[in-house]
């Protein structure tokens, strides 16, 4: 596909002045979701995006969100969006997706260890799952904010997962292995900036998820290379200043009770 503005993309129909790079960035992100990854194939990745959408209206998640402890057992999660695709996902995978969408601040090391122990997901596959879920959440959030209906889920592409394991992965204090900047292999030289924050390294067990995250951030926010521009605004192609951006970013983080 060479057209960055897919015909079905409802962003194209908005009366608001959406930047071309923003529309193209969203189209590229959906194509990334649809492609086979390192540990999930295209069908499974689009199914994860479908589960991401289901989480918002999941009755089981409503009950858990209302409970004092996020450890309570819940019955099966809703799978109303693209059920034929979600049939490819085991229940612990859907549970992990829904927890990440609905209650990210109540996730814990215990949750990830339990998931890994179930055998449903390896730590690297979980990192890829986080990449897909968070792409889908943010793509849909832009539509919600601008009053534009959600983009149709992409058609899954064929192919098997590459099972690519980058050089230099190590366990530090996170719940997934990450590549230390000093251990970057030749194939991953493009991943990090200087300096590099842990939030950039978080998905480095699956380098293409870092690349996809950086590309979408450049379209929705600013490029990593522009992070030290504290003026922002028109000099980085935006109609709001960096201070205005950071006010919004800080408030979103606080509402999500994000410690980072």
């Amino acid at each position, binding site marked *: 596909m060479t057209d960055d503005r897919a015909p079905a993309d409802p962003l194209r129909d908005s009366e608001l002045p959406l930047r071309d790079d923003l529309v193209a960035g969203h189209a590229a992100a959906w194509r990334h979701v649809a492609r086979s990854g390192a540990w999930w194939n295209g069908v499974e990745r689009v199914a994860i995006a479908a589960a991401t959408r289901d989480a918002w209206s999941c009755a089981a998640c409503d009950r858990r969100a209302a409970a004092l402890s996020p450890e309570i057992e819940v019955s099966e999660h809703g799978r109303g969006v693209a059920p034929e695709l979600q049939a490819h996902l085991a229940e612990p995978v859907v549970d992990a997706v829904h927890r990440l969408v609905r209650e990210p601040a109540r996730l814990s090391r215990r949750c990830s260890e339990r998931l890994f122990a179930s055998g449903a997901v390896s730590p690297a596959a979980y990192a890829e799952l986080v990449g897909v879920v968070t792409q889908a959440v943010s793509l849909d959030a832009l539509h919600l904010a601008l009053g534009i209906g959600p983009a149709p889920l992409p058609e899954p592409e064929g192919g098997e997962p590459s099972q690519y394991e980058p050089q230099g992965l190590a366990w530090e204090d996170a719940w997934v292995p990450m590549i230390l900047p000093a251990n970057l292999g030749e194939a991953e030289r493009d991943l990090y900036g200087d300096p590099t924050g842990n939030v950039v390294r978080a998905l480095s067990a699956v380098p293409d998820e870092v690349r996809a995250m950086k590309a979408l951030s450049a379209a929705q*926010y600013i490029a990593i290379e522009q992070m030290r521009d504290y003026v922002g605004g028109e000099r980085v192609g935006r109609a709001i*200043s960096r201070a205005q951006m950071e006010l*919004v970013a800080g408030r979103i983080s606080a509402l999500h009770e994000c410690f980072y």
Partner: protein
Amino acid sequence: MLRVSSQTMQERYDGAAITGGRGAAPTGVPHGDELLAFAEAVVARDERAIEEARERLIAAAGPRATVDAAGVIANFHRMTRIADGTGIPLDERMLKASAPEREALGIDAFDRRRRR
């Protein structure tokens, strides 16, 4: 980031607007109240409140600014979940740089040790 960018722009911000939200404190940032209302409505997924906040922001700052604010909102729906979903620790560099804000805003109360 907000502190440094505000200082760069010679604007005065009050971090209580971050934790307390709209009306908690002056934001010190142009159209700060409208931006906060927009962000809060999207997180609440309240479509009516989103529409009202979006129209107020368009009237105050313009449609391009509103699109860019929506982009930031979307971006941080992603980045917060990457951080929360992977259990990454705060970087040493950010720990040092954010010490005054963490103390002033009580952010250390979100102690990641409790999440083990």
